[in-house]
């Protein structure tokens, strides 16, 4: 593995090289049954309990295509602005691997169900159009578990176990065309694309698109070229299992390729593996001895010929897609492109929308989710949506502030308590006695104390210099441990000294 110290800086790399990215995404459809048989697709079952002669590829078994999976694929294609084939076939992709029961994968080759689409994504307030080459339908493989080796990979393992529960789950592959011209933004564009794709597919309700469970999997293709020169040789990085990893893998692969090229080397066309822990990629299977998959039309299945009228119905019935919805929300919330971009980048669209639905104002919702909560998510290295606070709790928090029950500053303490699992904001405020000191008697005493301790300041205020009140307010806040409302204190101070 290349040591990090020899890597050039990212800014240096993008000043000398142009990246071309490409993304191949696999989405496991959330159909009830598998692609070619009636077995359950549920995640997490005991190994080899969701299998039958068909998905085990037993001699004599035959596939029957799942109509719901075909429909879901067409809807994905339509949402990605693709042309839907009027006639197409499944094809066999032949290669030997133990987690593939038939030693061929039933997939699609030169006749994909959907092709030539695009997906617009927002990066830094700008729209980048990612061209989609194809969307096709295939079956997933089983899962191998290699036991006895140090790496968990097949090499060095003493025993290999295969779980075929996943074998035959419908899998949609979405392939972009190569995306040149993203320059310094390549990592962000890659991440924004996968995020947007995930949101589109989620909005269609055809998959739970959970990267951590493998129902959304991403391979990142990347090449570098010097400006004005032809595109370079690409590497294909697998094992990219989170949105953050998509971004990190592009960046790390750019640095690695640049250092190879700088040293006069050449990039191998190969599969690489991304490692979450180090943030780097290592070489996998070389594609130099590329497998000849010997594709041919699957003779066990009849061609798919979706009726154009039906496809038109599916298109008309598509839900509001995330981007359209974002534009609508931006208008509703009355915020600028830039502000909306911050919301999107923070992954806060749905959270803010839900917070507003729970009674919060759009300003307050944005303030909390983009401010304090984003900061805490960053600190803990998690996605905003993974924080242990719900939109309803954020709305409740804001209503406590608006009602004068707590100050903005105390609200941050309450957030911490919510995140620590202490309950809902109102309950925390009352349990911890965090309510604003609004008892005027107690406050007046604190104000009088502050006046007595700062006679010069008091004199200035009496002379009409109200700006000087800050010092006394600060002293009162300190005395009340921040639980007083600054505005009330100010009024009291001025009233006492008028």
């Amino acid at each position: 593995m290349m040591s990090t110290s020899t890597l050039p800086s990212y800014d240096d790399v993008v000043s000398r090289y142009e990246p071309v990215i490409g993304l191949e995404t696999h989405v496991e459809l959330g159909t009830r049954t598998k692609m070619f048989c009636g077995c359950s697709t549920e995640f997490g079952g005991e190994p080899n309990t969701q299998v039958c002669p068909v998905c085990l590829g037993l001699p004599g078994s035959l596939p029957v295509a799942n109509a719901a999976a075909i429909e879901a694929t067409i809807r994905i294609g339509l949402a990605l602005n693709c042309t839907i084939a009027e006639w197409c076939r499944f094809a066999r992709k032949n290669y030997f691997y133990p987690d593939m029961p038939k030693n061929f994968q039933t997939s699609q080759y030169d006749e994909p169900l959907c092709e030539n689409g695009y997906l617009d994504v927002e990066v830094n307030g700008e729209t980048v159009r990612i061209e989609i080459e194809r969307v096709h339908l295939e079956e997933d493989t089983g899962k191998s578990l290699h036991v006895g080796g140090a790496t968990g990979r097949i090499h060095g393992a003493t025993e290999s176990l295969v779980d075929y529960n996943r074998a035959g789950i419908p899998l949609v592959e979405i392939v972009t065309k190569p995306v040149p011209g993203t320059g310094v933004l390549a990592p962000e564009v890659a991440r924004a694309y996968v995020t947007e794709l995930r949101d589109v597919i989620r909005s269609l309700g055809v998959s739970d698109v959970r990267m951590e469970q493998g129902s959304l999997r991403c391979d990142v293709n990347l090449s570098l070229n010097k400006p004005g020169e032809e595109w370079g040789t690409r590497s294909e990085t697998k094992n990219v299992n989170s949105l953050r990893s998509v971004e990190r893998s592009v960046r790390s692969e750019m640095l690695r390729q640049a250092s190879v090229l700088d040293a006069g080397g050449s990039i191998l066309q190969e599969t690489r593996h991304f490692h979450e822990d180090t943030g780097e990629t290592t070489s996998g299977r070389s594609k130099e001895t590329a497998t000849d998959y010997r594709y041919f039309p699957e003779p066990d299945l009849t061609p798919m010929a979706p009726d154009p009228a039906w496809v038109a119905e599916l298109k008309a019935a598509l839900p509001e897609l995330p981007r359209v919805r974002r534009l609508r929300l931006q208008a509703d919330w009355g915020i600028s492109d830039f502000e909306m971009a911050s919301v999107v980048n923070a992954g806060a669209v749905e959270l803010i929308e839900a917070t507003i639905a729970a009674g919060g104002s759009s300003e307050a919702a944005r303030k909390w989710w983009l401010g304090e909560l984003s900061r805490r998510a960053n600190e803990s290295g998690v996605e905003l949506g993974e924080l242990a606070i719900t939109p309803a709790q954020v709305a409740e928090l804001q209503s406590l502030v608006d009602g004068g029950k707590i100050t903005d500053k105390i609200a941050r303490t309450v957030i911490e308590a919510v995140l620590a699992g202490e309950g809902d904001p109102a309950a925390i405020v009352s349990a911890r006695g965090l309510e604003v000191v609004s008892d005027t008697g107690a406050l007046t005493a604190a104000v009088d104390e502050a006046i007595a301790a700062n006679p010069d300041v008091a004199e200035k205020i009496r002379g009409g210099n109200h700006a000087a009140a800050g010092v006394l307010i600060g002293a009162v806040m300190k005395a009340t441990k921040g639980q007083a409302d600054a505005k009330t204190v100010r009024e009291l101070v001025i009233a006492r000294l008028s």
Partner: protein
Amino acid sequence: MTDVTNLTAAELAGVIASGEASAAEVAEAFLGRIEAEDGAINAFLHVDAEGARAAARAVDEARAAGRELGPLAGVPVAVKDIMTTKGVPTTAASKMLEGWKPPYDATVVERLKAAGTVMLGKTNMDEFAMGSSTEYSAYGPTRNPWDLSRIPGGSSGGSSAAVASRMAPLSLGTDTGGSIRQPGAVTGTVGAKPTYGGTSRYGLIAFSSSLDTPGPFARNVLDAALLHEVIAGHDRRDSTSIPQPVPPVVAAARQGATGDLTGMRVGVVREFDEAEGAEPGVIAAYKQAVETLGKLGAEVVELSCPHFPYALPAYYLIAPSECSSNLARFDGVRYGVRTGDDGHNSLEEVMALTREAGFGPEVKRRIILGTYALSAGYVDEYYGKAQKVKTLITRDFTAAFEQVDVLVSPTTPFTAFEIGSRTEDPVQMYLADLYTIPSNLYGGPAISVPCGLSDGLPVGLQIMAPTMRDDLMYRVGAAFETTQTPLVPQR
């Protein structure tokens, strides 16, 4: 009671239904015949005596309880070992699957059981249905009851020999390039290939998915039609199964048995007549058969199917291509034999050693052929071009059937040959399917009906019909049969 093994399937069903003989007695008679004969013939890879007795008992009990019996209830059937049978060994005559007991029944087997037939056992075949002689079985060749030094045809040679030697009144085979019709012809039995998609492939260990078709063997046309009707019909587990009613094959066979073919137009294919390599005795029997059809009232029309000469080479690209993929699953990982798993060999090595040890020479030859034909850079030239030929042959048939109702030809260019005489030269073996392959590429039904002897060995007449008009070939076949003396081997 006479020896029930001499009875036809229709007659057997009759005596069982009337109570003249019990299904159990019938089963015992055939099991006894197998016991006596199969040592010499080797038609069976596995005899399921217990299963047969249980099935027969169930029929007798159903009858005793007054339940209605199907038209073949209690009639024994032998099943080609390429069809999965739940809990009963299924090897496709390969070492690769030695000892494998499938957890499920093929659809055709399920339908046999539902009809109350009695499965006697699994019959020998060329390994994975690749061959025309049953010599490529990993478990030794089957011998022709007409002459034990000769082949019974293939790949369904165990099924044809079992019926010819009266070890079973009926049997099932599969036909990919002629594997029912050619063994039918050389053993003097009736063998029918239904329309592709007319009988389900679910549970057939796949050789060439776009061509494989299960169908019946019998000693006469009506029996074949009875079995055909039991196993045919749409199956939602096979996507290529045709969702249409089964053509009325039994009614057609009964109609044909009147011996009248007035109004029928029968086509003879000029390109077949010009083909070389057919034995004079076969040609003579065939010519006489055509004359006979004319005497029965049929109008005989000579016509041209210009692409038929390309059928054989196209078939030997399509079938091996598909088999190279279909047989990839036999790798020793999940079922069947595993070779070389000694803790040192890698997974890839174990797969390779398993396939090296598990497959016989003809299977390897076809896998290599097919792998090559599908390779990048060759796929268009070979597999792609063969698919085009398939389309052209379909057009030839479609055009022909605008002029005639059925086409006829010899079933196979030569009678049963000596065991060992063609294994050294694969192309000589492949020629056995010269006349049968066009129907497979087209997908239409075809039947072989005995049409006499040549040098003491049976010759078959092939009758080909349009897709889903299987009834037409049964009608013509049954009519022709009325003019023939039943062929019975000496054994």
